[in-house]
């Protein structure tokens, strides 16, 4: 695999257990910086588990443990010295079900910013505008920043969640099926956004939609039953997969 971009996230023999049940088996891969990396695979294959291991959201599940090495910028995220709050600020996350906080649009964006320190009003104003512009939402909401975010459409809410995530200035964006609840037009907007955002962020995307992976990602990993079957440039993986399982999946023979 040729690599012209430096590695941002790296896993070596990384496994995850939920109690006695093993969910991920010896995952090894290197995710390049400022690219879009997609994970595909059938439901329950472990792609979301891997994604949620990167910012340690799996810590929230009773009995979940990781094994092996998972590093971001060369630092093991499961090291004892790692402050999870700081780690998660560096690694933004966008969820499948985009639920804004039941607060105003403005407060949704500033939520993450004001957790650590006091930020001046003018700086907040600036970051709110910048984040909303980056999420391609500014023009639609600039006149109602102080209205409830619950009044936005589903697609707008998802872009608000992206704006909320980029507001804290992360380096990585993890996206867990960000379009699965959206209509095709909203999906198109989010996909466009992903392509624009990769100049600034390293993006890791979990998707059920193979066409989406093919459209927006530079690299793709195929997960099956907790194992990473194949990881390659997206074009290579979709046009000449090395493994039989990959070929079966992308040609629609199962999953």
């Amino acid at each position, binding site marked *: 695999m040729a690599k012209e971009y430096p590695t941002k996230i790296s896993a070596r023999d990384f496994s995850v257990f939920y109690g006695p049940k093993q969910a991920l088996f010896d995952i090894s891969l290197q995710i390049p910086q400022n690219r879009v990396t997609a994970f595909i695979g059938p439901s329950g294959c472990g792609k979301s588990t891997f994604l949620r291991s990167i*910012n340690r*959201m799996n810590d*929230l599940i*009773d009995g979940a443990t990781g094994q092996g090495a998972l590093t971001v910028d060369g630092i093991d995220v499961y090291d004892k010295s790692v402050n999870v*709050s*700081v780690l*998660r*600020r560096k690694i*933004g*996350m966008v*969820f499948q*079900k985009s*639920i804004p*906080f*039941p607060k105003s649009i403005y407060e949704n964006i500033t*939520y*993450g910013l004001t*957790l*650590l320190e006091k930020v001046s009003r003018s700086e907040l104003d600036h970051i709110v505008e910048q984040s909303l512009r980056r999420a391609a939402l500014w023009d639609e909401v600039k006149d109602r920043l102080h209205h409830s975010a619950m009044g936005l459409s589903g697609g707008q809410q998802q872009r608000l*969640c992206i704006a*909320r*995530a980029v507001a*804290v200035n992360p380096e990585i964006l993890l996206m867990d099926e960000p379009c699965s609840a959206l209509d095709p037009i909203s999906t198109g907007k989010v996909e466009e956004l992903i392509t624009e955002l990769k100049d600034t962020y390293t993006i890791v995307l979990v998707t059920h939609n193979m066409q989406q992976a093919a459209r927006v990602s530079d690299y793709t990993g195929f997960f099956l039953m907790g194992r990473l079957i194949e990881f390659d440039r997206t074009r290579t993986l979709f046009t000449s997969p090395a493994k039989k399982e990959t070929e079966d999946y992308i040609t629609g023979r199962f999953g």
Partner: protein
Amino acid sequence: MKHTFTQDLGISKRLLGFVAVATAATAAVAVLGILLGMFGQFLAEGGPSITWDFITDFPRNSNTEGGIFPALAGTTFLVLLMTLMGVPVGTATAIYLTEFARQDSRFARSVRFAVNTLAGVPSIVFGLFGVGFFVQFVGVGIDAATGSVAFGDGSLLWSSATLAVLTLPVVIVSVEEALRAVPRELREASLALGATRWQTITKVVVPNATSGILTGSILAVGRGAGEVAAILFVGVTYSSEVLPSAVTDKFMHLGYHLYVLATQSPDVEATMPLQYATTIVLLALTFLLNFTAIFVRSRLSTR
């Protein structure tokens, strides 16, 4: 066998269906009837006695005349103080159980078991506990340590504390329910932005559960307001010329007043209208609190 949609089920099956429906409907009508009959009787017997003076006057002539103002005031003070003591503890317990404890841990299961057991304990037992623990142990202890004499006897303070313990299960269960109703996605979104668990609880979880916490408090108040047995030995008084001026004072209470009117009066027959009127006030207070709870809850679920 040939199937038709007009096939007769037979007389026995049709009869069974009719009897079942009739029985269920009769039971439902009976319940409604009992309730309406009760209200009707209360209103007919006590309604004329409910006057402005009845609400705002002190009782006179060994409770056979006059009003129920000190009992109404005492009940109000009691439930307010009870809420101040019980709701914070109950809320904190519920937050611990839902947000921090491992759900299968021995400790969490023990606390849940304790809550369920508390909910089933007869209220008179709480009353005895109130005397034994709050008055005899805590109160006498405070008096011994400070040289005062105010705490070692039944009072508004210890009655409120006893009721707070009694209503704790109601608060814990309803607050837990409210906290669990906060979508997981909101918690995760907050944590993913770098919020600590505690920040997530104070900034996202509790604000989103406010209505539920409020509902729990009101239900607890409703339960506490009508409770008599638990405060019987812990500071409620037969009659009083003055309102309590300190938490260590004794107080009058609507429910207990009713008991006094019905059993301890020199002329029980003469106080009948007052008994019914007191009942109406007590019921009105309890219903008001319950309806507030229902209203708050419906607001919560439609938001």
